């Protein structure tokens, strides 16, 4: 079965292979090879038989083609209501066809699947919430990404990203040494303004173990410093692990379930080693989904929960504000109309809607917060439906993350007024 040297069905497990992919500018050769990549139909058929369970088969079968999911998809709305962006069309014309033909599909179809699975769905799961049957196209596109990955049909950037996870246990080439050095550097930098600030590495038994995104040590080390400043002000007993600090997962985006497991095991390993009371993750929604919501299943934890309580950054911010560990001068609350978009990952899939609203209550002057989320009772729905057309909810963008950042900057800005 002919395969390219760059585009093939193999996973990226060596630095040589990773470097070769990186050297192929914009994936030119990679995509050229992909156009000849053969589909292993037998393998596809076997994968379907082993992993296509009753829930997904029922979803594909039951869909009554009502297209109610259309309006729930921001990609459909943003593309001038292009009918080919209707979620049910997208999934039926890709995964639906693979299942109907039991894996007997060609290279062209797999490339079409790749295009739809990665550029026409973000797996935000909003369509599932609005489907009368609860058919979740986001879940199915996640599954389709896995099928595409196993056949070598994965975007070049994500083949690289998942390779990074396999080799560095991080989405970027940040080694453990790089990471620890960055922490030391950032702690040193703050001494003038925040004397005594520490970024404790590998402290056993801390109250909080902090995990984050490799992008921070790689490109934005000041983000680590800002978090450290907040923990310092709040007087937290915290730590970061030298290994297992990376919480994000490009492997999840790529559909490389093997690398997903490696990544989650590395974080859970740090929990076992350092035995923190709680783990705190960065604001990144997909990182939370990867490590807290889906991660437990990848490593086979039957309770579907991480080994230690793992809170989202907004939960910590809300708690710090509630308990007075961090105070915001009420005079400095925002006095302009503010709204909040619910994140798909930690709101829709994790239920933290009240937490982000609690943060808003400290940040925004009462009366300036404009709720766009749906009412829970019929009465509020009607009254809102009459007063505005904004009765829909949810989005894939994460304004709650922005709220957390706002909190941080507001705290720092008002630090002079603290007693």
């Amino acid at each position, binding site marked *: 079965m002919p395969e390219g040297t760059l585009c093939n069905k193999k996973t990226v497990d060596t630095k040589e292979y990773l470097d070769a992919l990186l050297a192929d500018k914009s994936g030119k050769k990679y995509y050229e090879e992909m156009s000849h990549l053969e589909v292993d139909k037998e393998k596809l058929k076997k994968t379907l038989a082993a*992993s296509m*369970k*009753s*829930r997904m*088969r*029922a*979803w594909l*079968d*039951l*869909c*009554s*083609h*009502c*297209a*109610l999911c*259309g*309006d*729930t998809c921001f990609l*459909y709305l943003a593309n001038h*209501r292009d*009918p*080919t962006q*209707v979620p*049910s*069309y997208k999934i*039926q014309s890709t995964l639906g066809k693979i299942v109907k033909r039991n894996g007997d599909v060609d290279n062209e179809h797999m490339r079409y699947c790749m295009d739809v699975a990665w550029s026409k769905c973000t797996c935000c799961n909003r369509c*599932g*919430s*609005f*489907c*009368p*049957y*609860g*058919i*979740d196209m986001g879940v199915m596109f996640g599954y389709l990404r896995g099928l595409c990955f196993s056949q070598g049909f994965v975007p070049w950037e994500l083949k690289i990203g998942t390779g990074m996870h396999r080799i560095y246990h991080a989405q970027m080439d940040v080694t453990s040494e790089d990471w620890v050095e960055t922490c030391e550097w950032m702690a040193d930098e703050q001494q003038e303004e925040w004397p005594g600030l520490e970024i404790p590495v590998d402290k056993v038994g801390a109250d909080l173990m902090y995990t984050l995104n490799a992008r921070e040590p790689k490109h934005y080390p000041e983000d680590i410093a800002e978090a450290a400043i907040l923990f310092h002000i709040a007087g937290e007993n915290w730590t970061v692990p030298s290994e297992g600090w990376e919480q994000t997962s490009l492997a999840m985006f790529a559909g490389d379930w093997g690398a997903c497991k490696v990544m989650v095991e590395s974080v859970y390993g740090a929990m076992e080693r350092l035995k923190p009371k709680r783990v705190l993750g960065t604001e990144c929604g997909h990182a939370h989904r990867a490590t807290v*919501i*889906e991660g*437990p*299943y990848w490593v*086979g934890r*039957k*309770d*579907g*929960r991480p080994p230690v309580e793992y809170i989202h950054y907004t939960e910590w911010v809300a708690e710090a504000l509630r308990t007075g560990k961090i105070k915001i001068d009420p005079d400095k609350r925002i006095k302009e109309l503010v709204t909040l978009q619910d994140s798909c990952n930690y709101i829709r*899939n*994790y*239920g*933290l*809607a*009240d*937490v982000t609203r609690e943060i808003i209550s400290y940040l925004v002057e009462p009366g300036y917060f404009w709720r766009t989320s*749906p009412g*829970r009772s*019929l009465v509020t*729905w009607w009254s809102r*439906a009459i007063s505005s057309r904004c*009765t*829909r*909810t949810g989005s894939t963008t994460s304004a709650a993350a922005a709220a957390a950042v706002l909190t941080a900057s507001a705290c720092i800005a008002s630090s002079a007024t603290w007693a």
Partner: protein
Amino acid sequence: MQQLYLFISGPLLWLSFGIFFGGLIYRVVTYIRGLDWQADRVAYQAWPALGLKGALRSIVHWLIPYYSVGWRAKPLYTFIFFVFHIGLVGVPLFLAGHAVIFKERWGVAWPTMSMGLADVLTIGVMAAAVCIVIRRIALPEVRIVTTIYDYFLILVSVTPFVTGFLAVHQAAPDYNLWSIAHVLSGELLLVLIPATKLWHVVGFFLSRGQLGADFGIKRGYKGKGFAW
């Protein structure tokens, strides 16, 4: 004619009900047996109470008009949807003409609705079906996903109502003919329900319940979920 009527309202009816119930039981059993906590990424067994609560909440919200956020997003569609389904389920179950059969054969007293209400609901089913067909043709986002199969299923579902209505009101010249067409089309529907995507008569409860359980387990222990 009488012989034919006896056959289709006797053995053939029994056979249809047998396929209907047997097929639906098969659907329910295979669905539930196929649920897989790790593949579905839902810890069903670890959190039965959260799962059950989420499932029931979700099902109830979607059974009541305008209760779920999804129904509220599409008010007109929701109205047509419920007119269609209330008639589809209510008329066959509570029609006086059907209750008579229960009474005659097993002596079971069965609650019935008035003929007037049955007529209104039946006309509602037919009118809603027309609206659904128009919607399928008129809206580009529905047209692109619609197949011949979808029209076939609407036809199969509505035929017993059209034929029954004509038979009852004797608008057609031959009562017997419409009666036979009504019984046959009803039996065809019974047989096709488990065999086609019309198995949603149980599939809705399973699938909505599953997603409700999923969200209940994922969100329920942290903050509040929503029923959708």
